[in-house]
């Protein structure tokens, strides 16, 4: 029925025309239209007959609606234009010109009009009330499926078509009831759960009922579901044979030769929806499992609602209190209003005077009088000019030039001493056996020694060497482990003996960097 146009979001012309049939119910004159349509659909007798405007007007007058015939005629024409009614083709012999003109206009109901009006009536009579899910249908569906499942090939071929059709029809009618009632229930539930103005007593009433009901509903679905799925799977291979047999009786043909539509279930295609509902589709869960999930969601939403209503209860009573307060404010004068603000809302900050008068070290007795005690120390600026900022030039910058000079000179001296010490060590090339050094030189030697070992990182083994390069001297100090050998350094401060270690002054290798050697 759909064509490429509907894929684009467009309704094809034929469908648009069909939807025109809905228009009458939304117009200003809807009451009149509905009354007119009721005259056509009201009783069974009216379904087959046709009526003239005069007759319709008469019927309306009986109900107390006074409309003149011309208006009725207009209304009926409108309904014809939009497909709800059709001009009757029945010919009746007219006896006069007037009768002929009158008879020309006779109207009867169309199929579309009947369908639309049926829905309109349902909408008018619909109340937003709870409707139970017809879980009683589950039992019936199960029984029906089991019975059909018991029929195998030959049994089907010999079964009575009418009985078979009856069985299938009942089954699908029950299924239809179940699905529509479930849908109804859940739309009701979703509306109720988001309402803000639920009274506590109202909510109390149906909260327990709702929770109980949901629990029972979930239980029943859970109980019947597996069995239904199995039974359905058992019947499905036979579906085509079953439908064929059920359709074997006399069939109605429509005007263009095609078979008329039969009740739901007698066409194999209808079984697909039941399959989806109970067993599930290619990638989706069965609708019944979805129903169970919805029930859990509903229970959760119910609890959230409950929480909101429980706290909202306080806000309800606060609403009236705030209104009263607003009324008081509106009638108060300025001072009373400010006092009311402080009393009702309590959002004022505290306030204190500034500047102390008491000396902490010499507190005055509490019985002293303010008139006699010392004043608070208020900055003169506040009295004189009402300002607290301090203005004036920025101070002079301090001069550190001399200190800098002194530091530089001192550093230079230190550098010179170090260079002298290094030179003194370099005077002893090769292995340092037993040497004399000044204190400074000894300190520098030990510094190089420490640097060498630290640079090495690991303890010295028998064949290992640690080295440190003397900065700028062009030589390096090498340390080796040599059991039995000792290095002795004598200086004015004392004697240093390095046991089992050999220190040597060796020329630094050209092009080598200290860091490279240290890793080795």
């Amino acid at each position, binding site marked *: 029925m759909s064509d490429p146009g509907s894929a684009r979001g467009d309704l094809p012309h034929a469908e648009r025309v069909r939807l025109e049939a809905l228009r009458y119910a939304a117009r200003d004159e809807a009451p009149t239209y509905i009354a007119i349509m009721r005259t056509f659909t009201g009783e069974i007798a009216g379904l087959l007959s046709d009526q003239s405007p005069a007759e319709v007007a008469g019927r309306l007058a009986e109900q107390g609606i006074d409309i003149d015939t011309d208006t009725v005629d207009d209304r009926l024409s409108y309904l014809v234009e939009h497909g709800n009614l059709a001009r009757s083709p029945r010919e009746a012999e007219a006896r006069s010109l007037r009768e002929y003109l009158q008879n020309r206009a006779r109207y009867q109901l169309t199929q579309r009009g009947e369908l639309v009006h049926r829905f309109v009536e349902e909408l008018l009579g619909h109340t937003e009330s709870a409707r139970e899910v017809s879980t009683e249908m589950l039992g019936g569906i199960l029984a029906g499926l089991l019975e059909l499942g018991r029929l195998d090939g030959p049994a089907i071929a010999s079964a009575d078509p009418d009985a078979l059709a009856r069985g299938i029809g009942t089954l699908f009618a029950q299924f239809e009831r179940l699905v529509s009632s479930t849908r109804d229930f859940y739309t009701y539930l979703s509306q109720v759960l988001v309402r803000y103005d639920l009274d506590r007593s109202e909510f109390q009433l149906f909260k327990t009922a709702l929770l109980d009901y949901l629990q029972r509903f979930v239980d029943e679905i859970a109980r019947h579901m597996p069995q239904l799925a199995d039974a359905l799977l058992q019947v499905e291979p036979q579906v085509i044979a079953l439908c064929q047999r059920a359709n074997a009786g006399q069939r109605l043909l429509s005007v263009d030769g095609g078979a008329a539509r039969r009740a739901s279930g007698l066409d194999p295609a209808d079984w697909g929806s039941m399959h989806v509902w109970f067993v599930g589709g290619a990638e989706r869960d069965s609708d019944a499992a979805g129903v169970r999930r919805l029930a859990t969601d509903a229970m959760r939403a119910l609890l959230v609602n409950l929480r909101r209503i429980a706290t909202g209860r306080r806000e309800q009573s606060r609403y009236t209190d705030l209104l009263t307060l*607003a009324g008081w404010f509106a009638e108060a004068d300025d001072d009373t209003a400010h006092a009311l*603000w402080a009393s009702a809302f*309590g959002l004022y900050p505290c306030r204190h005077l500034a500047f102390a008068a008491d000396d902490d070290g010499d507190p005055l007795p509490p019985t002293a009088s303010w008139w006699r005690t010392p004043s608070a120390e208020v900055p003169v600026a506040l009295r004189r000019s009402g300002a607290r900022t301090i203005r004036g030039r920025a101070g002079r910058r301090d001069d550190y030039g001399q200190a800098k000079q002194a530091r530089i000179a001192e550093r230079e001296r230190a550098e010179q001493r170090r260079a002298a010490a290094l030179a003194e060590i370099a005077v002893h090339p090769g292995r340092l056996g037993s040497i004399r050094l000044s204190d400074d030189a000894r300190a520098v030697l030990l510094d190089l020694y420490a640097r060498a070992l630290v640079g090495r990182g690991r303890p010295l083994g028998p064949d290992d060497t640690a080295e440190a390069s003397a900065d700028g001297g062009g030589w390096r100090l090498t340390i080796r482990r040599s059991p039995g050998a000792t290095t002795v350094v004598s200086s004015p401060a004392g004697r240093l003996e390095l046991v089992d270690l050999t220190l040597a002054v060796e020329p630094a290798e050209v092009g080598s960097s200290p860091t490279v050697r240290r890793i080795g």
Partner: protein
Amino acid sequence: MTRPVERPAPAEDIQLTAERRRAARALLLTPLLRSEGPGADEFRLVRRHRAELERLFADGLGYRLVVEPSTARLFKTGLGRDATRPLLRRAGRSFTPRGYALLCLTIAALSRGKGQLLVDELVAQVRSAAVDAGVDVDLDAITDRRALYAALVALVDLGVLHERDGDLEHWAEQRTASLLDVRRERLALLVSATLGGVGDPADLLDAAALPSAIGGSRVAVRRALVESPVLSVDALTEEQAEWWRRNRNREREWFAERFGLDLELRAEGAVAIDPDGELTDVDFPGGGSARQLALLLVERLASALRPVARESAVAERVWRRADPELVATTAGEVLAEWGSGFKKEHREDPEVALADARAVLVGAGLVRVEAGGAWSVHAAGARYTVRASLAEPTADGQPSLFEEES
């Protein structure tokens, strides 16, 4: 028989005490603290020391403290018929009664609505709330629209409303659209007094000033000291005065430890001074010509009244009356001498200057206006007088500016 060794109580961690003090001060200054905005650090401290703070405020001041994940609310009680703490608009003027009424209606409308709404939807709900309340509101007229705008801005500043999108600033004039988020948990924390059952505004004001039965004098006196600049003995009942006389020295320590406030105790009452000068909404003495004029006025009036006051009995010297003529002449002298430094409005119109200065002094609790235009000056005003002292040489010949008071 050996007795178990008594260990001294562990020294209170200085850091913790300091944090609690800071949190308590923040709550006193901003009774509604939020997790976002300028008070975020203090809010974190409040949350950390929540249990102690709840106890402190409940036992010490009889205030209820509620700490929620994003808001801390100290429910202060009323001040009686004190009109010196109005709600201020952003520009600094106070709310009008109409503005307050619209604020109440807005809060009522918000409490019934959704978590997010357009300004226009809110306006519709306020209208219907106004009808329910019987208040005549015309939100098409510009005055009421401005008042409603002020109420909305006040709610935004309190953190109850948040402008998600659109332009709220120009709503009053241009009716621009704006999307507002509602923080409903803060909305529920706004009203502090229990309004149910109160029939009259006067009842509400008086009930608010009454201390709770528990704590009695202690709570009442402490509240007065914490919230108001000056505690005056003539405002205390017999019972409270008795309690105060017995306990005021101990209160000095309590205030210093809990809030960092130094109490200055005198025969006529007490003031609580903040050494940092921060724990107040309005500074006195402070900057600006109204406050400067106020300081100079109170100084001169107190000096003029002092000679007689010193010699009077306590009951006579708490408040001293300054006749309207004295006030007028003093004001004239001050303006003549210092007026050139004042702002233009005050220079041009002495009446306005005097009115502003009077408002400052009444707000600071130092002056009461009597019938006929006379002022009553509180003894605490004497602490702002200037004492000129002659530097006299002391025993060892050194001139000293520090005079020993007898």
